[in-house]
């Protein structure tokens, strides 16, 4: 019954979305306010209906109702509750339902929070949001119905189980965060299309778009970090980024959302770069759709793509074509109306942000071309080629290095017209210190690789540059301590957000450089009780024993790792999951701010010893700490006064708002 209820709710949601797509758009065109008002209530109803559907599917997973095909294929009664729930979106159909739920959630949030939005703009935004809903609800119902029942005689006694690789807390929450990011960018898209229809973009528009983009960006940042962290500890060799198509699928929206965040500031503060910002909003969401397409169609086979069905691929491709094609066509006709009214000098913060956008956009384009190149090459030229990490390291990295080099300078420039000498004054010290630190690293290391010195120089440059920016705003050392403190407390939260965002990037760059340059690896056949040395640590394999988990069997090694007084015992494991008979490796990691000790147990060798891999990974955790600091910067920026002012005016709104919505 419950599953049928969910199915029914989805069908009704599709009808509601259709109404929400058509009625408010006509209302906005004709100026009929009661037609426009349909948008808000429809989006809330749509959200409730999709929630019911999602709740119904979750229920089916939680009670292990194996008469539902999806549950039988992807769940198992012995699975821990967390993975029964995360199993809901650990498969194609369920994850698309989650997509729809989040899409409807964002629509409902605009309906509820956007009281200060001009009614015409709001109606159009929600109508476009509903068009996307129609497409994806249709996709779900027609190609990927999660509520299909199995014929009675085929209902299994127990389910197939969830892919053991996905039974992990990090990965349980990775897809929801990514989807919140992907789908959050649909808001920026809807606002951009609405603005094109109206032919008007102003500071107020940018102020409405920015929080949604910022929220999407925060979720994307956390989602990507979670995915990378999961790969780090789960895949068993401590890699944290593989330039896999599925990873790139989330990285392209992130790069363009980052660019969009910056260009929206220019629109808001300086009333220029409008057409470009609208284009970026379209492109950012297009990348989200392309990402969904890549992951969901399985068109580019890769480590994580576990969906493979051409019918679905064609459907998503159609959605992709209509959305991107339609958006860009509208853009070509309307963009010329978006006049920019202010001029700025070649050396100014505006120019700095233009450069930021240029580098981020080119970097995103390189990732895009690299990701689809194997496809293009095979279909157009009939040549099978691979595009992997070595390509991206060479073709992508230079743009990031350039971006990092100009970042602290651009961030400190004033609007309109800057003087390079003046801007650089507080930065010379930072620059000298960064280069000195890089030189020190270079002189200390034995090998000739430049990665560590250059990476450390760049990381220090951004981190100290961000602090110098804050310091100069607070007149640190120039005014009294009290005055500095007063200035710091009065600083807008957006400034703190900016500082943390940039600082976080610096920390991530530091972690990447350090672990790439200084990682120590050891692969050997270890005998029990025969200690050996890895990068200054003494490693000793004590024993390997069997044990039973809730839904797997395991071989567990016990390794004692020590250095001086520091002693730790690590338990690397190999598991076989009962339901899928699939072996996995659970690395044992001792995490630390200065290094991770990472031990992996392998196979028993002919001479009775065990293959063991040991890694010392210096400063590895800073990669994700940096990402979290970036996300934190986003959160703080989101609470900035100018958005709260908008929220406060909302509270006053009910005076002249229509009662009972």
């Amino acid at each position, binding site marked *: 019954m419950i599953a049928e209820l969910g199915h029914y709710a989805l069908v009704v949601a599709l009808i509601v979305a259709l109404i929400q797509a058509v009625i408010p758009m006509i209302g906005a065109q004709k100026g009929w306010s009661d037609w426009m008002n349909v948008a808000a209530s429809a989006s809330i109803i749509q959200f409730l209906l999709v929630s019911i559907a999602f709740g119904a599917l979750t229920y089916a997973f939680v009670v292990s109702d194996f008469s539902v095909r999806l549950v039988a294929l992807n769940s198992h009664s012995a699975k821990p509750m967390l993975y029964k729930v995360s199993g809901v979106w650990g498969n194609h159909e369920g994850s698309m339902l989650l997509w729809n739920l989040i899409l409807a959630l964002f629509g409902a949030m605009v309906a509820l929070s956007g009281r200060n939005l001009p009614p015409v703009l709001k109606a159009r935004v929600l109508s476009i949001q509903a068009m996307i809903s129609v497409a994806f609800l249709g996709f779900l119902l027609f190609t990927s119905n999660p509520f299909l029942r199995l014929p009675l005689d085929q209902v299994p006694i127990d389910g197939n189980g969830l892919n053991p690789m996905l039974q992990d807390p990090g990965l349980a929450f990775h897809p929801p965060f990514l989807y919140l990011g992907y789908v959050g960018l649909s808001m920026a898209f809807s606002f951009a299309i609405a603005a094109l229809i109206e032919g008007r973009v102003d500071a107020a528009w940018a102020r409405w778009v920015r929080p949604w983009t910022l929220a999407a960006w925060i979720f994307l940042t956390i989602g990507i970090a979670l995915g990378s962290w999961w790969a780090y500890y789960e*895949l*068993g*060799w401590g*890699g944290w980024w*593989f*330039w*896999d198509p599925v990873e790139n699928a989330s990285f392209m929206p992130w790069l363009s959302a980052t660019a969009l965040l910056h260009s929206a500031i220019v629109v808001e503060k300086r009333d220029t770069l409008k057409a470009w910002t609208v284009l970026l909003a379209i492109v950012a969401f297009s990348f989200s759709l392309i990402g969904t397409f890549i992951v969901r169609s399985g068109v580019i*086979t*890769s*480590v994580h*793509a576990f969906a493979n069905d051409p019918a679905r691929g064609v459907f998503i491709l159609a959605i992709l074509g209509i959305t991107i094609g339609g958006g860009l066509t509208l853009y070509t006709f309307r963009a010329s109306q978006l*006049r*920019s*009214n202010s*001029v*700025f*000098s*070649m050396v100014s913060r*505006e*120019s700095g942000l*233009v450069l930021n956008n*240029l*580098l981020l956009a*080119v970097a995103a384009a*390189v990732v895009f*071309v690299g990701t689809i*190149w194997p496809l293009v*090459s095979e279909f157009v*030229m009939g*040549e*099978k*080629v*691979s*595009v*992997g990490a*070595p390509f991206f390291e*060479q*073709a*992508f990295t230079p*743009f990031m290095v350039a971006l990092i080099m100009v970042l602290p300078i651009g961030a400190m420039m004033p609007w309109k017209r800057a003087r390079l000498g003046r801007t650089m004054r507080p930065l010379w010290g930072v620059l000298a210190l960064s280069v000195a630190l890089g030189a020190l690293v270079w002189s200390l290391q034995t090998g000739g690789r430049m990665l560590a010195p250059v990476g450390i120089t760049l990381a220090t440059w951004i981190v100290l540059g961000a602090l110098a920016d804050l310091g100069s705003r607070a007149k640190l050392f120039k005014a009294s301590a009290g005055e500095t403190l007063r200035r710091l407390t009065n600083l807008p939260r957006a400034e703190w957000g900016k500082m943390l965002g940039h600082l976080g990037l610096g920390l991530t760059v530091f972690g990447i450089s350090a672990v790439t340059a200084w990682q120590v690896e050891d*692969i*050997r*056949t270890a005998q029990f009780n025969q200690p050996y040395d890895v990068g200054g640590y003494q490693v000793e394999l004590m024993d390997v024993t069997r044990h039973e988990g809730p839904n797997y*069997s*395991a*071989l567990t090694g016990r390794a004692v790792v020590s250095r001086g007084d520091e002693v730790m015992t690590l338990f690397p494991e*190999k*598991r*076989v999951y*009962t339901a899928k008979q699939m*072996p996995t*490796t659970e*690395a044992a990691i001792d995490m630390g701010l200065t290094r991770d000790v990472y031990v*992996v147990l*392998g*196979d*028993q*060798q002919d001479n009775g010893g065990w*293959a063991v*891999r040991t890694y010392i990974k210096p400063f590895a955790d800073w990669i994700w700490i940096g990402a979290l600091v970036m996300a934190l910067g986003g959160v703080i920026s989101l609470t900035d006064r100018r958005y709260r002012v908008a929220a406060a005016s909302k509270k006053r709104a009910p005076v002249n708002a229509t009662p009972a919505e």
Partner: protein
Amino acid sequence: MRILFLLLMLASPAMAVQPSEMLDDPALEARAREISKGLRCLVCRNENIDDSNADLAADIRILLRQRLVAGDTDEQVIQYMVDRYGEFVLLKPTYSASNMILWLTGPILLLLGGGMAYAFVRRKNPAPADGLSEAEKQKLDKLLNS
């Protein structure tokens, strides 16, 4: 359960390079590892042979080490692999004419975009200095004169 443990004894997904495969000469082994990172495990999804657990990857790793021991240079080993498996084996596509677009996307877009951005910043102010249209000016005149 026995069968599961047997499976555990046999298969292990993350043991890429096996200790038994490794060369005794650390310099040669380091070169082998470096080359491995650029070669694709042909039956895997986007994985290099160094990280891969597939049997084929192990075969290529061993083959690669045999070539190195036989005295091949890095370039010769890579060429040997390309002759044997095709360009598909290279994770970094060649700089050949057919891959031109791939390699030049970044630099060309940077130049084009940079040129457009430069022109945009250098453009003359599109709106009149006071930002008023003809109609607005007349209105203002009326207001001022009334």
